[in-house]
């Protein structure tokens, strides 16, 4: 009975999703988006489709950024440009914030220089740790981790849980369960590096992580899970009533890595780098995904699961 109810609920969410975003089933972006390497897109107009409702919580999501390459800069320019039309307050970082070294020069080249104008504009970055990140990053002033490998913060009616999926020990599991059990926020959003669900050919779903965290997410009504690790964008069909996203193409791209006809995929984009813009408003969580050319590659609105019940 419970399973049937869950399936119906999941299907309802998915259909709502599809209708709202104008998408039906898997729509992989074609190669027409092409490989935009070298095309500096800073001046490209960024058309915002988000509703910009009064009092909404607005943020961006980037993952696997820390390369310091021209590609990261190009996407960073679009991220910056999008703030003109969508004044987001903060950015979630989904791990692998610094690849291949963590000297002061690395912090500068792979983070500060890329996002300096956002930092100047008082945009706060909240980081999760990836498999390329030293735990010492938790002390870095611009990652706002408060010296913790996993932490929680709130904005408006939403709680954000930064998890260290690289080292999910009992202390972290207990902390997550304890925090969620006290959390009455309307939106509970978890973000971490490794994706519990993925259609990636290189990595794929992190089943061992999912076995530990998903029962907790389900039990305490986590609405959305954001992850990186895979260097592409993927919106997963709702799983057990939870919306899962992968946004791990902020500094690297694994072109063509999303498996064709994956039963998990609601929408995938793996032909260019990308990031997400999110707005939590009264009527749901709106999202828009932008490529390095400033093109919208996915968008939609998610209903709040609690309100649906």
């Amino acid at each position, binding site marked *: 009975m419970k399973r049937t109810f869950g399936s119906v609920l999941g299907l309802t969410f998915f259909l709502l999703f599809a209708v709202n975003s104008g998408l039906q089933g898997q729509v992989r972006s074609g190669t027409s988006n092409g490989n935009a390497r070298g095309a500096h897109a800073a001046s490209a107009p960024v058309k915002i489709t988000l509703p910009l409702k009064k009092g909404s919580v607005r943020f961006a999501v980037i993952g696997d950024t820390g390369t310091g390459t021209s590609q990261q800069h190009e996407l960073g320019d679009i991220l910056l440009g999008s703030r003109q039309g969508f004044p987001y307050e903060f950015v979630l970082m989904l791990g692998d914030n610094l690849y291949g070294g963590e000297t002061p020069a690395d912090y*500068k080249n792979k983070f500060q220089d890329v996002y300096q104008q956002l930092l100047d504009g008082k945009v706060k970055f909240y980081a999760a740790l990836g498999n390329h990140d*030293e735990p*010492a*990053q938790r002390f870095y002033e611009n990652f706002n981790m*408060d010296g913790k490998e996993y932490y929680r913060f709130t904005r408006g009616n939403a709680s954000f849980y930064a998890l260290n999926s690289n080292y999910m*020990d009992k202390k972290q*599991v207990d902390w997550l369960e304890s925090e969620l059990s006290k959390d009455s926020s309307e939106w509970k959003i978890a973000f971490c590096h490794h994706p519990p669900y993925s259609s990636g050919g290189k990595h794929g779903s992190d089943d061992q992580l999912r076995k530990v965290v998903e029962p907790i997410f389900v039990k305490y009504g986590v609405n959305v899970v954001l992850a990186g690790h895979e260097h592409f964008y993927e919106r997963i069909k709702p799983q057990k009533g939870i919306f899962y996203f992968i946004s791990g193409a902020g500094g690297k791209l694994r072109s063509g890595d999303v498996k064709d006809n994956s039963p998990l995929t609601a929408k995938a984009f793996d032909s260019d780098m990308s990031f997400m813009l999110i707005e939590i408003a009264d009527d749901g969580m709106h999202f828009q995904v932008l490529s390095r050319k400033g093109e919208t590659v996915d968008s939609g609105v998610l209903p709040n699961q609690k309100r649906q019940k």
Partner: protein
Amino acid sequence: MFAVLPTMKIKYGVERFVFRTLGALAVMLGMTLAGVTIQAQGTRAADVKLSAHEQHMIDAFNAHVRDYLKQRNRVSRKLPKLSREATPEQINAYQKSFVDALRAMRAGTMPGYIFKPEFAEYVRTTIQTEFPVRDRVEIKQTILEADTKGVPLKINYPYPEGKEFTQIPPTLLLKLPQLPKEVKYRFVGRHMLLVDTDNGLIVDFTPNALP
């Protein structure tokens, strides 16, 4: 086996029937035995009491970890406290001072001071007995997937900057002795390391902890 059978040149239908039946029976017997083995292995639940030998080994391990914590805390107390809003320069300077002081204090410490050989055996047994086959495969894949070439199997050396950290599958981590936040398990290939969280020092290692 089924794939092999059709390729065999058997002239008579009866012989083909007997061969295939025997083959099928062999496969079924194999699967049944495998199922029994998996079921038997799966009965060692996480809450099953440890043997006296295992308990003694883990107690000794925990005691040695506490010894290390005393050492590193003596060092860290002498260092300027790292702010929770530190600059990259401050983070790097803190890590370097921490590692240098710890290495000096631990000079002469031998590998295996914390990880006794029984610990690697315990980890291997845990993986073999606590997880069904599919999980075992995934755990090993996850650990071996990381690019850790160049990480030295030497104690008192810092984990090389820029090298990937292997994700420890949470299902496995939850079955290992819990560590204080100051140290972490890491894997380099099949070998398990104990690494200081704040400064990356390789505190100890044990070879072939992964089956």
